[in-house]
């Protein structure tokens, strides 16, 4: 565990070094960190690492629920952030970091409308997909927002949801499982990324490490999307206009690099995952369970009773139910 108190010698080294162009991590003043992105086996899981020593994991998931009254034609999107006490050395709940990260992510992805929420609607005012991203900070060494935004973007880009629609004849919700339908990917209007800077007397330090973040008072977050537009700006100190322009230009170049890398990796994951329908194994479907006839009756009755008050419906359970029904009919 790192010490929580900052030593005076380190403080003077960082402050004096910044003026002479020397940094703790032996990087240049405008040199960004190396990013590493890896994807998990499940859909929509992504881990982003900013060397040295910041690691954030994000997992996207979706469930069917009711849209909000104010926006009946849209799905919902929630972000929840967990910061492990092993990473910070702080007690759970005492830290302000999760709320700071969540605020940045919400402004980037929700308020800037990065995700197409209208495509998540299933039935106007009644049923919609509720998208959820869980962010876990595993290791911390500064630049939490940058890494978290990268991980969330990776999770959203690789996420797939099953097809869901309302059957026109019976007015029932039909959810096909991922293995049997063409999975639907999320539609993103633009891809945002954040770059953070530390400010030391009109000197910009790109992507500071934890000590630099703690010691230097000023902090500047610049969010840029893939078409080089500014989509998020957060600063703790008033700064000069030229400095802001300089930071934006630096961030533009770096964001584009990083987003291109992410896009390339996502393409790789998608080609690995893609199996054309005609290549899928023949024969009876493996998913779904066979139940006795009495159980089927009760389950179908329960379903019809439940229908009006349907709130949170896990896609998988419904899917297996429907499969089972279909299989029994075929048999």
């Amino acid at each position, binding site marked *: *565990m*790192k*010490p*929580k*108190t*900052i*030593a*005076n*010698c*380190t*403080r*003077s*080294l960082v402050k*004096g*070094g910044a003026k*002479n162009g*020397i*940094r*703790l*991590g*032996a990087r240049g003043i405008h040199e960004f960190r190396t990013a590493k992105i890896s994807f998990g086996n499940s859909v929509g899981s992504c881990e982003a690492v900013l060397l*040295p020593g910041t690691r954030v994991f994000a997992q996207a998931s979706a469930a069917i629920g009711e849209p909000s009254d104010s926006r009946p034609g849209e799905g919902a999107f929630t972000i929840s952030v967990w910061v492990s006490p092993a990473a910070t*050395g702080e007690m759970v709940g005492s830290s302000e970091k999760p709320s700071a990260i969540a605020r940045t992510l919400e402004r980037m992805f929700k308020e800037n409308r990065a995700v197409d929420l209208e495509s998540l609607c299933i039935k106007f005012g009644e049923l919609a997909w509720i998208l959820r991203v869980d962010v876990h900070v595993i290791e911390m060494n500064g630049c939490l927002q940058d890494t978290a935004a990268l991980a969330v973007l990776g999770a959203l880009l690789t996420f797939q949801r099953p097809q869901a629609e309302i059957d026109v004849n019976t007015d029932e919700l039909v959810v096909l499982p991922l293995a049997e339908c063409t999975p639907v990917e999320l539609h993103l209007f633009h891809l945002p990324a954040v770059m953070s800077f530390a400010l030391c007397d009109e000197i910009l330090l790109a992507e500071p490490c934890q000590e630099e973040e703690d010691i230097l008072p000023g902090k500047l977050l610049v969010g840029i999307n893939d078409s080089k537009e500014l989509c998020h700006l957060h600063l703790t100190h008033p700064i000069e206009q030229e400095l802001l322009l300089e930071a934006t230009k630096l961030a533009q170049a770096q964001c584009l690099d990083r987003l291109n890398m992410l896009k390339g990796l996502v393409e790789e994951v998608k080609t690995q995952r893609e199996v054309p329908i005609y290549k899928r194994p023949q024969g009876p479907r493996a998913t779904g369970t066979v139940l006795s006839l009495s159980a089927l009756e009760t389950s179908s009755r329960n379903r019809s009773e439940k229908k009006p008050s349907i709130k949170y419906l896990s896609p998988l359970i419904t899917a297996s139910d429907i499969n089972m029904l279909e299989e029994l009919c075929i048999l």
Partner: protein
Amino acid sequence: MDESDRSNIGMKRANLDLNDEVGNLVMPGDEFSIPKDSSKVILGPGLRSVIDKRSNELKTIIACKAGLLRKAKPNTFFLEMKTRSYHSFKKDDVLGIIKQKSKGEHYSIDVACRELRAQLSKNAFEGATKRYRPDLQVGDCIYGKVMDFPKDYPLELTCVQPSGKACGLGSLNGGHIFHVPVHFVRALRTASPKDNLLQKIGRIVPCETAVGANGLVWVKASNAVLTILVAQLLQTLSKANPDEYGTYLNKFNSTVRTVV
């Protein structure tokens, strides 16, 4: 049940011999039989003696950590383990940062350990009296020795040796303080000149160093660039394989020559 069977299925092993197991992996809970002349055995980190409370006799020796059993020359046994968090022992040299300066007789000190609080008496410096004693500020670095390690109380540190001299202990000025994994500290503190990393680094860049058993390292070279480079080198070496140390040192040598 046979001994080898027990270890195969992951059960607790008992009646092991300390001398036979040197160099082997020991799991927490493994019990060792007491050597015949138990007065001569010294137990180091990771091993603990269990004393029967009724008869007040030594019952067994038990391992309380997972690691490799090692033996130092005069019958000293300890476990070599990889760890990032520090557990205190008496007479450890420890680096700390002053966390709080109260009106009382003590400074409270951050020793980079979540469970441990530590304090340093304001009089525990070389030549300090009640009137004349060093005035330290919050954030100053301290190189001290663990004097006492009472249960449920803060660690007691001191900055004088029992002889009354400082011998290198005390407050440190300038330089840079950083954290490395605790098991790497052993590689830095070995006495043998063949393995000693700090000596090899010192041949390339002359620098002052202080290595605390709690994983904090203080470095001060002639200028800021060299200080940062040495700190970077130590942090990369702490993650590297011991076989690769030579190549890293060569690389470091060439970078230093370009800087100077």
